[in-house]
Structure formats: structure tokens, C-alpha cells
């Protein structure tokens, strides 16, 4: 299996994506931003379709759209949570609608749509691989450098706002990290199923962990188990990777819920 370059590439890219999704996922879940992650992935879908329509790389289109939206969301002051959920739903509808429209307009065949929606890790181009490597390493670097403020804001927001004078900047940076992680993770699981890698491993890990460092470590391990297992199983059975990741991660999650 590992003799094939496409499998080697898939494992390298998949490993990095799993690490970054597990890491960022813990902060996303701690801050109850899973819904936002979902919406960002739909915006990413619109971006990828738009890029396809323009003849650009879908990853860059995804990244462009998600970065712009997350930066804008950062500027909005989400007051009432119930209202903001509805606003986010509305934005989500626009994104999906645009995505469908661009796909139809671009007149590409169905496989382009499938690869955006469900992931295309086995057919990832060399340029894309380099982009994913650079992006995941950048996210990890920023995440490590900002680890302390991110951790405080995520796990005790009430005191973080008084303690950190630049807390709004941390929020914006976090949204950018989320947007980037969504865009790269979509390469493996597709934009439809981002939450599988971003929120499930972290949610499962957070049932076990009692220190933030443990939660992150476990989330990364759960994500890696999912990605590695899914790549191998998909290779052997020809059933899509996303299916196996979904099954593995949900099993891990339900097992964690039952055990804890």
C-alpha cells in the first residue's frame, strides 16, 4: 500500500490535517463554536465552487472565502446568542445556495462536486500538498505561540476578558485559525463533513481529559486513528474515506460517552 506515491501523499497530508483538526477542535468545542465551524465549512464549499467556476484551485477558493467570512464575523458583536444562531443560519443558506449555483455554472462534471463535498485526498495535486503542508504548519505554529491566551479564553472566558487586554485580537486570530483548518480539513473529509474531524475527536477527548494538554493530546490521537484507519480501509475496500472516518470517529465518541 505504501509503495504508491498517492498513498504516501495521502498519509502525509492526512496526518497533518488530523493533528491540526484535533488541536484546534478542542478550542472550538470548549468555546461552543461547533455550529460556526459547520457554517465555515459551508462557506468553504461556496468558495471551492467559485474557484472551480473561475478555474482556480478549490483549496485557495475555500481558504479565501472562509478567511474573509471569519474575519467579518470577528468584527460583528454577537450579542444575543439565539439571534446570532439565526444570523449564522441565514449566512449558511446564502453560502450553500451560492455553492450550488457556481457548481452548476461551471459545468464541470459531478466528480468535482463530489471531491469538494466529500474530500479528495487520494487525488490531491502536488501543488495542493505543498499548500496543505504550509498551512497546517502555520496553524500549528500560531496555535503553539498563542496557546496560553487561547486556552484561557476558551476554558474560562469570564476571567479572560478582564485579564487579556488584547482579547479581541486573540478572538480574531482564533477565527482565522479555524477558517484555515476548515479549508485544509476539507481536503480529506470534504466540506460537508468537516465537523467529523474538527469536533468529534475533540468532544470525545474532552470526556476523558481533565487538563487542557491531555484533551489536546487525546483529540489528536483520536483524529489520527480515524484518518490512518480510514485511509487504509478505503484503499482496501474502495469505499470513500469519509465514510470510514465518520464511522471510526463516531464509534470513538460514543464509546467515550458510555465510558465517562
Amino acid at each position, binding site marked *: 500500500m505504501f509503495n504508491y506515491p498517492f498513498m504516501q501523499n495521502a498519509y502525509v497530508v492526512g496526518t497533518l490535517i488530523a493533528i491540526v483538526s484535533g488541536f484546534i477542535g478542542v478550542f472550538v*468545542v*470548549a468555546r*461552543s463554536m461547533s455550529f460556526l465551524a459547520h457554517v465555515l465549512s459551508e462557506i468553504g464549499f461556496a468558495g471551492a465552487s467559485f474557484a472551480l467556476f473561475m478555474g482556480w484551485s478549490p483549496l485557495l477558493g475555500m481558504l479565501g472565502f472562509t478567511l474573509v467570512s471569519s474575519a467579518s464575523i470577528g468584527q460583528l458583536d454577537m450579542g444575543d446568542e439565539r439571534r446570532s444562531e439565526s444570523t449564522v443560519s441565514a449566512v449558511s443558506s446564502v453560502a450553500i445556495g451560492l455553492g450550488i449555483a457556481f457548481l452548476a455554472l461551471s459545468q464541470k462534471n459531478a466528480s468535482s462536486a463530489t471531491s469538494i463535498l466529500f474530500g479528495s485526498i487520494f487525488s490531491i495535486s502536488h501543488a495542493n500538498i505543498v499548500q496543505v503542508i504550509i498551512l497546517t504548519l502555520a496553524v500549528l505554529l500560531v496555535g*503553539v*505561540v498563542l*496557546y*496560553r*491566551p487561547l*486556552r*484561557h*479564553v476558551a*476554558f*474560562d*472566558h*469570564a*476571567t*479572560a476578558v*478582564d*485579564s*487579556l487586554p488584547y482579547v479581541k485580537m486573540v478572538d480574531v486570530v482564533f477565527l482565522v485559525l479555524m477558517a484555515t483548518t476548515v479549508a485544509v480539513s476539507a481536503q480529506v473529509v470534504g466540506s460537508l463533513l468537516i465537523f467529523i474531524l474538527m469536533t468529534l475527536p475533540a468532544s470525545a477527548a*474532552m470526556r476523558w481529559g*481533565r*487538563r*487542557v*494538554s491531555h*484533551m489536546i493530546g487525546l483529540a489528536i490521537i483520536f483524529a489520527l486513528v480515524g484518518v490512518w484507519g480510514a485511509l487504509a480501509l478505503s484503499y482496501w475496500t474502495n469505499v470513500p474515506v469519509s465514510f470510514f472516518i465518520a464511522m471510526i470517529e463516531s464509534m470513538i465518541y460514543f464509546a467515550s460517552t458510555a465510558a465517562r
Partner: protein
Amino acid sequence: MRILTGKDVGIQFADNKRWLYRHVDFHLDSSQILALVGDNGVGKTTLIRAIMGQRALTEGELVRDHAQDLRIGYVPQYHDDIGAFPLHIADFVGLSYDRGLLPWLRRSEKEHLEHVLNEANLTEIANERIDRASGGEKQRAFLAQAMIQDPDVLILDEATANLDNVAKFALMDVVKHYRDHHDLSVIMVSHDLDIVERYSDNYLLLSPDGAEFGPIADLDTSKLEEGGRDHV
């Protein structure tokens, strides 16, 4: 040593021109505990926000006598739902280490953390989940979290509300200990007159008719609408 002075402080509602209070004078010296009292809604939290630099005064000034960069630690009354992803108490208190590039704690920080936990009588339960701690233990953890950053002034916002007597005194004894050993000044917002009379040095009573400041012995509790020992 004088830490903070309020001179002719006045705060006005932005929209309807009504004054919360005017001509408020007070001061806070090092190692002193100042009780901030007054009826509900009188504007105690607003003054706290002004002291923390998050809100402007309408008139008067708050002078930081000793140091411009006064470190203020704020212990809020409510935290977000800490039961959702409960951390160990040591990890929770350690969240206050929110500056610096190192993801892990330096040895000096670890020692400081142990020391702060010890002074708050949390060492034995340091590796227990915070959501399983008692009300008093949780409050001590919130207090310890504020102490990590070595503040010059600690602001306690209704810290003893909802605690039984044993827990209340346990908490205030820890506050006193920090005060004695860390050169700390404390501003305590409280409705609990028992605690206020037992632990504070001075009081600042806010009301729309005028503020009063003086040694705690001079506080006439009947001036508080909800005064009385059994007040909750």
C-alpha cells in the same frame, strides 16, 4: 502607602442624564480591605469597572497614587459553565498563566502555582475536577486564579454570596492571608454585613443621595435598605 484615590467621582447614565452618584471620595492603602456597599443597582459594579479602567467617569478622577501600571485582579461572581468541560483545579487555576510563548509552565511558574494553591487550602484537591468541588472550594479556586497574576489590588465581587458560614470564613481567611503575605489591597463588594464588619478596614457606601467613606466601625447599617445580619 496609598494605592488608589477617588476624588469627587461622579458617574452619570449616558442616556437619561440621571446620576448614579456624585462627589464620591475614597482612598485605598496597601494591605487594606475596603468594603464597597450599597443597595442593589446603586452602581457598585459600575465603579468597579471604572477602577479597572474599562469605563470612563463622568466627573472626578481615580488616581493611581503608587504605580501607573496597577495590577488589578478581578474575581467575578459568576463564571461560565465550568461544568461543561471540567478541568482539574490545578489546571483551572493555571489558566491565569495566559501570557508568554511557552505552552507549558516554567519551573518558577509551577512553584508559584503550588504556593498559591497551598495558601488557598486547595493542595489536597488540586487534582480533583472543579465541577465536583463544593461552593466554598470553587470560590477559593476563583480567588487563587486571580492571585496567580500577583495583583496589587484584588476586587472581590460578592465572593461570599451563596456560601454557608463555614465556607465564607474559610474564604475570607484566605483573603486575609494573601493580604498579609503579598502586600495586597482588597476591594470587596458585598451585601454580607457580618463579613464586612469582621474583615474590612474601611467602607465606601454608595447611594444616589451621596456617598460615605470611613472606617468600618462608623458604618451605620440601617442606611442600607437591606441591612441586617441575616441579609442574603
